[in-house]
């Protein structure tokens, strides 16, 4: 958790003499370079994206034509619900599964195992390496012809012939979620472990003296203490997954037959393969609307916790 500032802080330079600017003006001046960058590379492009959704515009050509809501109805009458559903399947799957795995590992590492510091470092590897490397590795594991997963499952007699994990609609989404889980659970583990370490040991000892079993202790002692961290971790991961691109794009490109198409891949493909940036930004606008709700919830929660002060 970031170090929270003390509740109310007197401006340190209020009594300054000599400076010609007031403190407020000085503080704003400090933010100026950052704000200028922000305005040009984030705010302006995003705002202009919201407008582009109302035009017919080709990425490669100058000029555009106002078409009203055409681009929006194109999606709403078409693939919007399918894409929304698939985005949600991916997002929920790639949030819940790593959370469970990461939490289980955090609990295990927190129970006083020897070498848990070393293990924590080791387990971070899947999270720190570049997303494309994660994709390459799992692409190779899932490979239909020479992949190690098929090899092991066949030796164990679980499958009889090779499965094209990424090549068929039935398994592609599952494979993508497994891949993303591998890359995300270490982060969940570290965050939850940090939360668990704030739980006073005495509480556990007292509870177990009173005869509470380990499951009872988990719900009565541990969970109330880590609930805050858990909700932030879940929400952040949900927001990130809702707009996740790399893993899906490299593994499947949204295929096969659109089975792993999410907002991120659909917007990208429409803009950079179909060159139709009117339609791409229209879908992006709908997407952002949904994201804004999530971000608002996130800001509220961090606000309440005092982190965003």
């Amino acid at each position, binding site marked *: 958790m970031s170090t929270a500032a003390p509740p109310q802080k007197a401006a340190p330079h209020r009594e300054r003499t000599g400076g010609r600017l007031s403190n407020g003006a000085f503080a704003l001046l400090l933010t100026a370079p950052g704000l200028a960058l922000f305005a040009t590379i984030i705010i302006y492009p995003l705002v202009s994206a919201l407008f582009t959704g109302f035009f017919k515009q080709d990425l490669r050509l100058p000029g555009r034509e106002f078409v009203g809501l055409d681009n929006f109805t194109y999606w709403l009458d078409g693939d919007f619900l399918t894409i929304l559903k698939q985005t949600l399947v991916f997002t929920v799957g790639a949030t819940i599964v790593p959370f469970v795995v990461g939490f289980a590992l955090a*609990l295990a*590492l927190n129970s006083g195992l020897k070498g848990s510091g070393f293990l924590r470092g080791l387990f971070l590897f899947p999270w*720190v390496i570049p997303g494309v490397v994660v994709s390459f590795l*799992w692409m190779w594991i899932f490979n239909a012809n*020479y992949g190690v997963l098929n090899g092991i499952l066949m030796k164990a007699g679980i499958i009889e012939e090779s499965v094209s994990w990424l090549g068929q609609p039935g398994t592609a989404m599952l494979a993508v979620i497994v891949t993303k889980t591998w890359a995300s659970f270490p982060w969940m583990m570290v965050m939850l472990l940090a939360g668990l370490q704030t739980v006073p040991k005495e509480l556990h000892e007292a509870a177990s003296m009173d005869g509470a079993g380990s499951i009872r202790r988990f719900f009565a002692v541990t969970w109330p203490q880590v609930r805050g961290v858990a909700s932030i971790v879940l929400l952040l991961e949900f927001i990130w997954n809702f*707009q996740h691109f790399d893993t899906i794009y490299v593994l499947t490109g949204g295929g096969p037959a659109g089975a792993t198409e999410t907002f991120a891949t659909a917007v990208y493909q429409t803009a950079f393969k179909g060159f139709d940036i009117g339609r791409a*930004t229209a879908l992006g606008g709908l997407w952002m609307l949904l994201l804004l709700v999530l971000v608002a919830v996130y800001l509220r929660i961090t606000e309440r916790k005092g982190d965003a002060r």
Partner: protein
Amino acid sequence: MTTTTSTPLSGTDRLRTSAPPARHARRRRMRKDLLRSRIVAWTAVLVIGAFGMLPVYWLLATALSSPEQTFQFPPKLIPTDITFSNFTALAENDQLITYLVNSLIVASITAVLSVVVATYMGYSFSKFRYRGRRSLMHLVLASQMFPQALLLVTLYAVFSSFGLLNTYTALVLSFTTFTMPLCVWMLKGIFDTIPDALLEAASIDGASRWRTLHSIVAPLAAPGMIAAGLFAFVRGWNDFIFAVTLADKEKQTLPPGLVSTYIGEFQTAWPELMAASLVVSVPVVVAFMFLQRYLVGGMTAGSVKS
């Protein structure tokens, strides 16, 4: 601490031997409970460890195998003839060297730019109170949650109209969209830990506000600034979506470079790709060894990973 508590504890232990049988039963149960939770803990570590580490093993094993060996089915789980030829092949590939150099340049410039800009902004957020501050902070926090794929569409158009496509500038600026918010939040957290009294003392001694920031605060915050820079470097190094879209072969970085080199071929050269993947991962892993201490702070402050 343990030595002081051990004496009274062993005293109670002695008492316990003469305690009623219910106490005995409870102690025994607690011990059994502890043993059981140990077993559960180790099982969890082993199962999750297998899921987490076997792919890493496979990455290494494939990188050290000959191409012929990887085109066998079922695959050999333990490679028999180990070779480093996949790594030497990378060093001889000029295009990959270009990607590597691009990655180093772009990620470094991004890190420096982000830290410099974020230092002023983070300091302003941390040490001053003024109207609009909270809204600005929320804006920075929320900005990293906007969808990159959408931002990219119009960013592409903007860069295109300024003739900036396929330049380092475009890559640095686009990476800054996600590294700057991260650095601002990390550095704000670091400035929060510097006591206000220090700034007041500097001010009483007659140091100007600029001087206070540059000669007193910045040196104190230097480790944090380096950590923020490393985080930014790693994020830039790992980026795929911006680099693959905004630059071509000459200016592209390693992640999209590897995709265009290896993926989509008729038969992917898996051992070479795995070797290349290891090489790309090395700087990141090294950076994180230094970042251990800042890990949790950096992770939330910046909402590091997308």
